[in-house]
């Protein structure tokens, strides 16, 4: 064991961590926007919208993320970062759409009926009655999804985006100190994941079900 190697490569590890964090942050924002939109559309009474969104999630969930990222990078010849980002967003948006849909459906149907009976329009009921309740329910499963984004972002190392996993491989190639590098990267990944879990727990305390 030679842990000094980590100090020697601290700049590389730091760069990798920064890349991983901002890539994941963008992917989280993007996949939440797309996923919540698709999930909400899928929870409307419209038959065709439900079928279309179901097809979207079914298609994207049954393909590995690696396939999507390589498709954008090699087949469509996109630059590395947009290819990685698009792959991550598309992949996770399908899961987030499912989580959102399940959250909306879990708000009791009686709430919708009561709102409609009071003479509100569908969108009014959706916006002011169902959505606020669904947001609270959805926070814990959403945390799982965001942690999954962090974990999945390691795949972009395979198309040479210089994230944490990529830097680990570089250290391994240059010094054969794979064990130390992998340990450091794992610890850093766990810290980022814990950061997400912690902030989502805070959010849950603020707005969630008590």
């Amino acid at each position, binding site marked *: 064991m030679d842990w000094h190697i980590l100090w020697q490569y601290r700049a590389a590890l730091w760069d990798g961590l920064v890349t991983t964090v901002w890539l994941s942050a963008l992917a989280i924002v993007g996949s939440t926007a797309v996923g919540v939109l698709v999930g909400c559309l899928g929870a409307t009474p419209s038959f065709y919208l439900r079928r279309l969104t179901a097809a979207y999630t079914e298609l994207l*969930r*049954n*393909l590995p993320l*690696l*396939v999507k990222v*390589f498709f954008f990078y090699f*087949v469509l010849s996109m630059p590395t970062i947009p290819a990685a980002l698009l792959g991550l967003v598309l992949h996770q948006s399908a899961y987030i759409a499912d989580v959102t849909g399940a959250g909306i459906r879990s708000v009791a149907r009686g709430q919708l009926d009561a709102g409609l009976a009071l003479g509100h329009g569908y969108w009014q009921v959706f916006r002011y009655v169902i959505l606020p309740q669904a947001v609270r329910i959805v926070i814990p499963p959403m945390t799982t999804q965001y942690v999954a984004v962090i974990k999945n972002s390691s795949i972009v190392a395979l198309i040479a985006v210089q994230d944490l996993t990529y830097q680990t491989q570089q250290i391994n190639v240059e010094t054969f100190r794979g064990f130390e590098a992998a340990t450091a990267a794992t610890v850093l*990944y766990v810290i980022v*994941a814990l950061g997400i879990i912690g902030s989502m727990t805070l959010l849950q305390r603020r707005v969630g079900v008590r």
Partner: protein
Amino acid sequence: MTDQPVDLRRAMRSPRVKLLIWRIGCGVVLMLALRAVLDLDWTSVAPSWLFLLTGLGRSWLLAIVAITAGGLAAAPLALARVYGPPGIRQAATALIECVRATPELMIVFWVYFTLPIVTGNQVTSWNAALGSLSVIAAVYLAEVFRAGLYSVPRGQSEASAATGMSGFSTFLYVILPQAVRNMVPALIAQLVGLFKTTSLVYAIGVMEFFRSITVTNNAVFAPYQLYLVLALGYFLSCFAITRIVRWYDPKYQLLE
């Protein structure tokens, strides 16, 4: 005459007509897709069909062996986490959570690159792939098993304690059969996830489906055709497993 459009509108609103329109729409899209696929030049790809099929078979083999081995390892982990004495319980929890928080690709690299450094023996990439996928399967299945054990209402164990059954026979004859029944859909969902995860061992050079596609592409350069085969191979495999879940429990919502 004036009734005509109104009737048509009403007819469009009936669920059966909607389903029919949806199916026709899907049919048209599929036909267009099929025409586009047939327009591609398949002569360069066609000779590799057996190679690609072998790759797909290897992916299936990896997934099935890993979920079996992982299941065997997950059972004691889950039992330790649920019923273990205080020290062991926390240790099992920490182990499961740490591995679950680590990216799957990092686990693959860990087993392939750092296990030889720790133990001193060389690991073949195939064994490293099986090992890392088994580790991944084990921790996720441990959580499935735990959820399954918790899904049995507490009243069941209290009732069997009241009738004088021992702790062990309560577990074996009352808790376990119900837990297993509740677990099956989540188990199959894990198999879908694991099948997709097998694509990661591409990184350590195992010739599974994804790598066999990229190798073929490097040789004949037909990215559109090969990526179509790739997408279809993964989609149909995972879709088949998903359908098995629906067949087992039509009400089950598949959430990994």
